[in-house]
């Protein structure tokens, strides 16, 4: 195998191998350390050879033996040493079947532990990216605008809390599962949005984060095929991500939805998303927020053009969202849809009412939407001021360039 091929195996297997190892050795840190040892061993062993038939089983096996070695060497385990080693060997013996169902359970255990409500949301995201997705601490630190040291500290503390506070390595029982699943979906969506619209920096889109989120969504759906909320979320991510090729120019500038070349959209991914939305919508019970958002994304994805979009239905769906999951961002999106149905003046009233209630401070989205509405109403001076405000409120270079472009267009018309 080439080093690249080996690296790919590591990336694909790290999460599942770790999930199983944590159960086998009963300790997050020990499991991570011995998995690293196993990767190092694999790099030496696999180079130039064929890939082993089951690389994950190979890695887990080597790591497990390393764990037993470490426990034997470590004097602080002296009293319980025999007992622990015995337990690991016994679990290993019964684990040799390598049954896929067991491995799935391990992965779900790991996800549920990382998304435990005893962690702050950003800690849940960081822990999931590190342990489930196998991202490096440096990669996660970049996304959070934190230094690598600070992020490493945060992860160490989180893993300490798992051990010291007794956060269980298990999938919660039926009565707590729905609540936990909601938390897990929130984490996945946070990973996706960070990938879809980076909050700062030179790049608008962090493809790797969006891809990880979709991978997590698929994984979770495979683990819990009956959960319709997962279908809604996965559909939402697939449909948004399908439009990614049209959202930026080669030089990294933003192309707004109304100007996007729809032939660049990923039709295959749209088809997959549409099928999932339909399944999620046809399930019993009231639709959940992700499903409604996915339905909106589906209408956009199916529309032949910006003007020929079913704006009336989109505005209606935003009204549903305002009832079940109200937020200032939803209000803004609703206003933007209303502008297409009832005109910019009516939408501007909605946006101004949101602003008057103090929604969305220090955020470029509100002034940007306002600016666009004012531009359409031909109130140029106010539009200019709003674009300037939007530009000051964002850290993202591509958005700054977009607002500058709009300002230049207004100046050209004057």
């Amino acid at each position, binding site marked *: 195998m080439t080093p690249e091929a080996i690296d790919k195996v590591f990336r694909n297997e790290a999460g599942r191998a770790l999930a199983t190892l944590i159960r086998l050795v009963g300790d997050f840190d020990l499991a991570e350390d011995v998995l690293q040892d196993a990767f190092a061993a694999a790099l030496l062993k696999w180079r130039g050879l064929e890939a082993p038939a089951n690389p994950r089983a190979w890695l887990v096996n080597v790591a497990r033996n390393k764990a037993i070695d470490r426990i034997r060497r470590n004097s602080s385990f002296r009293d319980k040493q025999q007992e622990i080693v015995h337990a690991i060997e016994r679990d290993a013996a019964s684990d040799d079947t390598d049954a896929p169902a067991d491995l799935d359970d391990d992965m779900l255990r790991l996800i549920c532990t990382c998304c*435990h409500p*005893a962690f702050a949301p950003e800690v849940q995201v960081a822990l999931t990216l590190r342990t489930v997705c196998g991202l490096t601490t440096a990669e996660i630190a970049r996304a959070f605008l934190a230094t690598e040291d600070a992020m490493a500290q945060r992860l160490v503390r989180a893993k300490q809390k798992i051990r*010291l*506070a*007794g*956060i*269980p390595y298990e999938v*919660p029982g039926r009565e*707590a599962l729905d609540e936990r699943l909601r938390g897990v979906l929130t984490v996945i969506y946070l990973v996706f949005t960070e990938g879809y619209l980076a909050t700062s920096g030179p790049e608008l889109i962090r493809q790797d984060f969006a891809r990880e989120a979709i991978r997590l969504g698929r994984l979770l759906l495979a683990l819990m095929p009956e959960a319709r909320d997962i279908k809604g979320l996965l559909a939402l991510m697939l449909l948004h991500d399908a439009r990614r090729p049209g959202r930026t120019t080669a030089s990294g500038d933003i192309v707004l939805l109304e100007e996007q070349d729809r032939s660049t959209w990923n039709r295959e991914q749209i088809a997959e998303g549409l099928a999932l939305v339909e399944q999620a919508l046809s399930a019993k019970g009231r639709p959940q927020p992700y499903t409604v958002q996915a339905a909106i994304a589906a209408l956009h994805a199916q529309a032949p053009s910006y003007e020929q979009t079913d704006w009336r239905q989109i505005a209606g769906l935003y009204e549903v969202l305002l009832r079940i999951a109200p937020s200032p961002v939803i209000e803004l999106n609703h206003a933007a849809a209303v502008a297409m149905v009832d005109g910019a003046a009516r939408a501007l009233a909605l946006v101004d009412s949101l602003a008057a209630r103090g929604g969305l401070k220090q955020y470029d989205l509100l002034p940007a939407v306002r600016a666009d509405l004012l531009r359409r109403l031909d109130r140029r001076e106010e539009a200019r001021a709003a674009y300037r405000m939007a530009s000051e409120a964002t850290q993202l270079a591509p958005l700054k360039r977009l607002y500058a472009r709009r300002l230049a267009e207004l100046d050209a018309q004057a």
Partner: protein
Amino acid sequence: MQYLLMIYQNEAEYAKIEATPGQTMSPEYQAFTQSIISSGNYKGGDRLQPTTTATTVRVRDGKILTTDGPFAETREQLGGYYLIEAKNLDEAIGIAARIPSARLGSIEVRPIWQYDH
């Protein structure tokens, strides 16, 4: 594992509730305590006198310094605690959520430090 469940609530508000006929939480507390004794989770627990009775002690340069009142002035005060044995944090959180005062104030769940030797 053992956990200390610390019950924080606003003393003044709680005193008002207790003074209102039929509002006292005592029967509920008795039932809750009995239930965790029967389930084997109970290790100990007490209600505390209000913070107006508190004295805070420090030793500086070998001298004992005392101040009237609690260590910190906060909106919610420590009013009591349970020491419990639970399988893991999820079980501890489940028990904490059943403490009657969880509906009024907040319960801080803290694992007890385990010494290895």
